[in-house]
Each structure stands twice: as structure tokens, then as C-alpha cells.
């Protein structure tokens, strides 16, 4: 297993270098770069122009710039943003990446579980009206034009019902009275969610070790998960920063809803198909013949096996999550990586744009790695 992860990390490193090269040369081949802007600015003397270019390292030939850039990435030195001069790109990314991770990990996990559970029961109840209705709704959600969906959500929940904030990722009136950094709260939130996740994993593993009875295992798992969540809620409730965490979560609901709706249907439809295929397998007939209750046949035998292609599909759809992210973040004014990417490209802020692209890439590659490891755990036929 360790060796497998090591190999995968090496692969990721190679992929990353190739990816950085593509990002770098693509962005530099875009017309109207900073040189053009400087060259057409009549207020600059040639000497001033030269010194600015030199300061940004733009006088050297492109391949040399690339090698320097590559070297710098590994020390988190991504240069200085043009548009937020003199803030280093890394500072901007460190501030914004957690927002994106929080938003997308939450939405993706919810979407996966909703899609998994609904796809599973759809296939099990095949032929009923509820199946047709859900499938049609799923296909609509899957193919809907993202901005249309987002505007509808904003209009309905933000404007018509007025229950969720319209835009921004926090309420400035609230935050003005504190010198707390939103970045810190985001990190706390991420930490809380990771801890809950770890607690769930640990209790799952412990339950497997402690008992062989499915019921006992389930009880152990649910109780410890409930305790972990209760502890987290309690901590946030009594902590003085709780209100700020709540503010961020409150602002997060609509974007999470949007991303969930956009991505759950893919999982649901693939799960449904995969489940319908699995039901025909002989081992499902065996499970039935063994006299196992219907639910056990569905969950333990059919869904557990049908899940594998769904995970594969999930990996493939990661790219769409990124492109959807740009639209979602921009429309919700959620200042994460997607919005940064769009703004910096529009502002021709190369260092920031490449930094944003590269860290989005790193995020996706690591998400792949995590999913691959999970897959290897779930499918005993995989050899590392």
C-alpha cells in the first residue's frame, strides 16, 4: 500500500510538471500580455518600462523564465500578483484555496451520497412512477445551464423567500467589529470537518474489529459519528468565534446547494445503471437464495458492488467540477480559486492566473489520489 501511494505520488509529480508547462506556455501565448500593456502606455519612459519588466523577470527568454518558475513553485514562491501588487501570489492563494476546498468538498460529498442513495433505490424500485420522475429530474439537473440554475436559486432563496444571503461569502457588518481573519475561520472549519471525517473513519474501522454483527457495527458507527458531530457543534457554539463560523456556513448554503444539484445527478444516473447491471449478476441471485432480507441484498451485495464504477466515473467528472467552480464562485461572489482564476485572466495577471491554475490542478490531482486509494480499499481485485 505504502509503495502504491509512493508510486502514485511520483506520477503526480511528473503530471504536475507537465501541467505547469502547459499552463505556463498557454498563458504566455495569450495575446496582449503585460509587455503589450506597458509598451502602449505613453506615460512610461523606455527606461522605466525596462526596469519594470526586469523587476518582474520578463526580460529573459521564455524557456529560462519557465525553469525559474518551476524552481520557484517548489518553494511556494509564485511571484507577485500584478493586480494586487505587491501581495505575493502565494498569500492570495493561501487565503482563497481553503474557501474553495470547503465549498467543493462539502458539496461533492453531499452530491455523492445523495446520488448514491437515490440511484440505488431508483434501480431497486425500477418500473415505478417515482423512478421515471426522479430520472427525468436527474437528467434535467445534469444538463441544465449552470448560470440559469444559479440565478434561479439566488432569485428564489435570496430574493423571493429572502432566507439566504444574496452574495458575498460573509457579512461585512459582522466582521467589521472584529480583527479576526476569515482565513483562520475557514481553516478551523476545514479542520473540524476533517476531524469529523477522521472520527467516522476510525469508528468504522473499530466497529469492524469489535463486532461481526452488522447491527452492532452500525450502532457503534452511528453513535460515535453522532458524538463527533455533537462535540463539534458544541465547540463552535461555546467558542467566541462560533458566530463567525456560523456566518460563513450560512453564506455557504446556496453555493453548496448549487454545486450539489449540478453534480449529484451524474452520480445518481451512473449508480442507477450500474445497479441495474449488478442486479442481473448471479451473486445477487445467490444472495437472495440464501434467504437474506431484501435490504441486505440491496445494500450489502448490490449497492456495494455497483458502487465501484460510480467511483471511477466520479474521478472522470472531477474536471467538470473545476469548470463549474469558476461559474459558481463568480456568480455567488465566492472569492475562491475559481473566481480568482477568472478575475486574474481578465486582468492579465499572469502570476496569479498560473498560481490559481496550478493549485486547482494540485487539488484535483490529490483528490484523484484519495479516490484511488479509497477504490483500492473497496475493490479487493485491485492489486497495488
Amino acid at each position, binding site marked *: 500500500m505504502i509503495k502504491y501511494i509512493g508510486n502514485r505520488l511520483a506520477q503526480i509529480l511528473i503530471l504536475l510538471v507537465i501541467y505547469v508547462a502547459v499552463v505556463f506556455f498557454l498563458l504566455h501565448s495569450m495575446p496582449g500580455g503585460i509587455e503589450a500593456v506597458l509598451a502602449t502606455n505613453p506615460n512610461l519612459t523606455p527606461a522605466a518600462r525596462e526596469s519594470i519588466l526586469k523587476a518582474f523577470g520578463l526580460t529573459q527568454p521564455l524557456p529560462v523564465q519557465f525553469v525559474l518558475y518551476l524552481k520557484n513553485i517548489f518553494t511556494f514562491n509564485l511571484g507577485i500578483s500584478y493586480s494586487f501588487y505587491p501581495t505575493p501570489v502565494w498569500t492570495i492563494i493561501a487565503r482563497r484555496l481553503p474557501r474553495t476546498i470547503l465549498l467543493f468538498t462539502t458539496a461533492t460529498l453531499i452530491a455523492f451520497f445523495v446520488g448514491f442513495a437515490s440511484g440505488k433505490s431508483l434501480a431497486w424500485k425500477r418500473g415505478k412512477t417515482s423512478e421515471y420522475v426522479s430520472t427525468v429530474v436527474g437528467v434535467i439537473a445534469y444538463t441544465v445551464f449552470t448560470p440559469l440554475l444559479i440565478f434561479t436559486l439566488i432569485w428564489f432563496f435570496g430574493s423571493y423567500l429572502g432566507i439566504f444571503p444574496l452574495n458575498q461569502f460573509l457579512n461585512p457588518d459582522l466582521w467589521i467589529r472584529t480583527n479576526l481573519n476569515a482565513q483562520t475561520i475557514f481553516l478551523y472549519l476545514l479542520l473540524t470537518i476533517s476531524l469529523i471525517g477522521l472520527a467516522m473513519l476510525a469508528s468504522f474501522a473499530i466497529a469492524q474489529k469489535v463486532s461481526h454483527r452488522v447491527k452492532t457495527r452500525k450502532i457503534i458507527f452511528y453513535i460515535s459519528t453522532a458524538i463527533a458531530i455533537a462535540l463539534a457543534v458544541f465547540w463552535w457554539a461555546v467558542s467566541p468565534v462560533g458566530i463567525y463560523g456560523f456566518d460563513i456556513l450560512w453564506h455557504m448554503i446556496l453555493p453548496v446547494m448549487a454545486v450539489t444539484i449540478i453534480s449529484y445527478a451524474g452520480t445518481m444516473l451512473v449508480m442507477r445503471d450500474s445497479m441495474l447491471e449488478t442486479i442481473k449478476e448471479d451473486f445477487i441471485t445467490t444472495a437472495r437464495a440464501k434467504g*437474506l432480507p431484501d435490504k441486505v441484498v440491496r445494500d450489502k451485495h448490490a449497492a456495494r458492488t455497483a458502487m465501484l464504477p460510480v467511483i471511477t466515473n466520479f474521478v472522470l467528472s472531477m474536471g467538470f467540477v473545476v469548470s463549474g467552480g469558476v461559474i459558481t464562485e463568480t456568480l455567488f461572489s465566492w472569492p475562491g480559486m475559481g473566481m480568482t482564476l477568472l478575475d486574474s485572466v481578465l486582468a492579465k495577471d499572469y502570476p496569479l492566473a498560473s498560481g490559481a491554475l496550478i493549485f486547482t490542478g494540485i487539488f484535483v490531482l490529490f483528490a484523484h489520489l484519495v479516490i484511488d486509494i479509497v477504490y483500492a480499499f473497496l475493490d479487493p481485485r485491485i492489486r497495488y
Partner: protein
Amino acid sequence: MKPILEVKNLKMYYNTRSGYVKAADDVSFVLNEGEAMGLVGESGCGKTTTSMAIMRLLAENAEIISGHIYFKGKDLLKLSEEEMNKVRWAGISMIFQAAMNSLNPVYRVGDQIIEAIVTHEPNVTFEEARERVASLYKLVGLDPKRMDNYPHEYSGGMKQRAVIAMSLSCNPDIIIADEPTTALDVIVQDMILKEMSRIQKKLNMSMIYISHDIAVIAEVAEKIGIMYAGKLVELSDSVTIFKKPAHPYTVGLMSSFPSIKGEKKELVTIPGEPPNLLNAPDSCRFAPRCPFATKECWEKEPPYEEIEPNHFLACFHPQNLRKQVSEYARG
């Protein structure tokens, strides 16, 4: 001898877009305690359909039109799904035709057997169940250490044995073995069949062997039922079936397959194809291939009757036809 399973006038059809496929049509037989019965017939004649009906594992489009299946006096067709789940595996277990794919690829083989045990006997602890699996593994000739392997780590023959061990795991009264050895080579096939027969006699279980090969069945079954096109056409003890076959199809079947033991017979096949079971006509279904078909055979179905004690037949012209059919087939 006490009957343990009585199938009475079972009709199970598949409802398809083009009509009913009469896959099990008016099938009746009795299986006694400790008895081994064989069910023989060409591919597609409804052997699997009949056994699936007994387990009540119906395909989505399957319909039980009429009939009764009495197991220990209770009609299985009238039980609720929960009650039926108690009969499955603990009362009647099955070795499926596709034994190779009968195991779930994501669970350890031993665990899949343990699952059956603890489902039906909740008081058995995990350790006791493991011990039982270990002894079953020894019984079928598998190394108990292999319990913790996954199905893909087993060879075909090992999977077959594991599936047999699984079918024995809840001490069922009846095991239905649907072509338990077709996927294996002849030598392993013979070995496994003999082992199954030995276990069956030792544990005094009832058994239904299903095969298209009457020679294979003859070695293990005391009683043989011949199926043709969804119908049981002849049923008797194996000696009678071999010595005095009365149905032309039975005779044809016997000359279709070389016997493993005994004198070398010439291999003759029955000319023609089995009929399409879709909207099967009300004539003798064997008539198109039968050299003895008369006008009567084309007009109505021969009734399934006891022509002598414990010898059932559905044919208008029962006689000792063996010699004549062989001659006919040879041309």
C-alpha cells in the same frame, strides 16, 4: 419413505412482449426424504425455471400461473416473503448453474458462507460459524486456510467446491444442484459429483441434480425425471428409466450421450430442434421430432399419467421403443 417436496401441476410462464413463454408447464413430481432425484433435458427445456420456482426466485417477468409446491406440507407459493426467506437455504439450498459467478467478488469467500449461517441461526457466534465453515471446507476438499481469500483468488474448481460448501452450510433438507459441474473438466466433474453424492448419503439429505447429460445423472440419482419443452414427460426410478424407457424422447436422450460406464454405444442425436416455448401449441410438443407421432399426437396433449407403479409418462404410444428408435435414428 416420506415425501419432503411435492410439486403439483406447477405452471410458471415468462411474460414477454410477444406472449407467454411456457417454460414450466404442468410439472408434477414428488421428492422423498433422503432421495436423490435427477432432472434431465436439453438446454432450454425449463430445468432452471422449475428449480427457481421452487426457491421462489422469480425473474421479473415470471408469473406463477397455477400449481402448488409443498415443502414439509406447507405450500411455498402461499408464504410471505419473510417466511420464504426462512425456507431459503435452511430448508432448500441451491448450487447455481453459474457457480463461477455465484460469489460476490468484493467479500471473502468464508464470510459469504458465514453470512448465510448467522442469518438463519442468530445464536451461532462468529467463531462457531467459522469453525463450521472450516469443517465444511474439509468436507468438500478445500484447505480451510482459503476461507479468507477472495473469489478471484480461487480456481474454477475451488469456487465450485466453495459453492457446494456454502449450499451445505445451514444443513438444508434439500439441495438443488443445477448443472453443478458443467464448467469443469471431466475428471474433476466426476470427482465432485461423487463427493456430493457421498455427502448427500452421509447427511441423509434430499437432492435434485439437474443436468442435460443423463449419463452423469444416472450415476448419482435414484429417480430420474425427463423434461422436454417445459413439460415433465417421463419420471421413474433410474433402473426403470434405463431398462424400460417408454417415452421416445427419453430413448433419444440416452442414445445422444455416450455412457461413461458400460458398453460403447453409438452416438446418435435426436433429429430436429426443441420447439419454441413461446405460445406453445396444445399438441404433444415432441410430435415434430417424434417418429411415432400419429394424428392424435398433433391434435391434443398427452396426459401425464402413472402407467405402472412409480412410472409416470406423457405419451400416447408408450412401449419399449428403445431398439426401434435407435434403428430409426441410424437411418
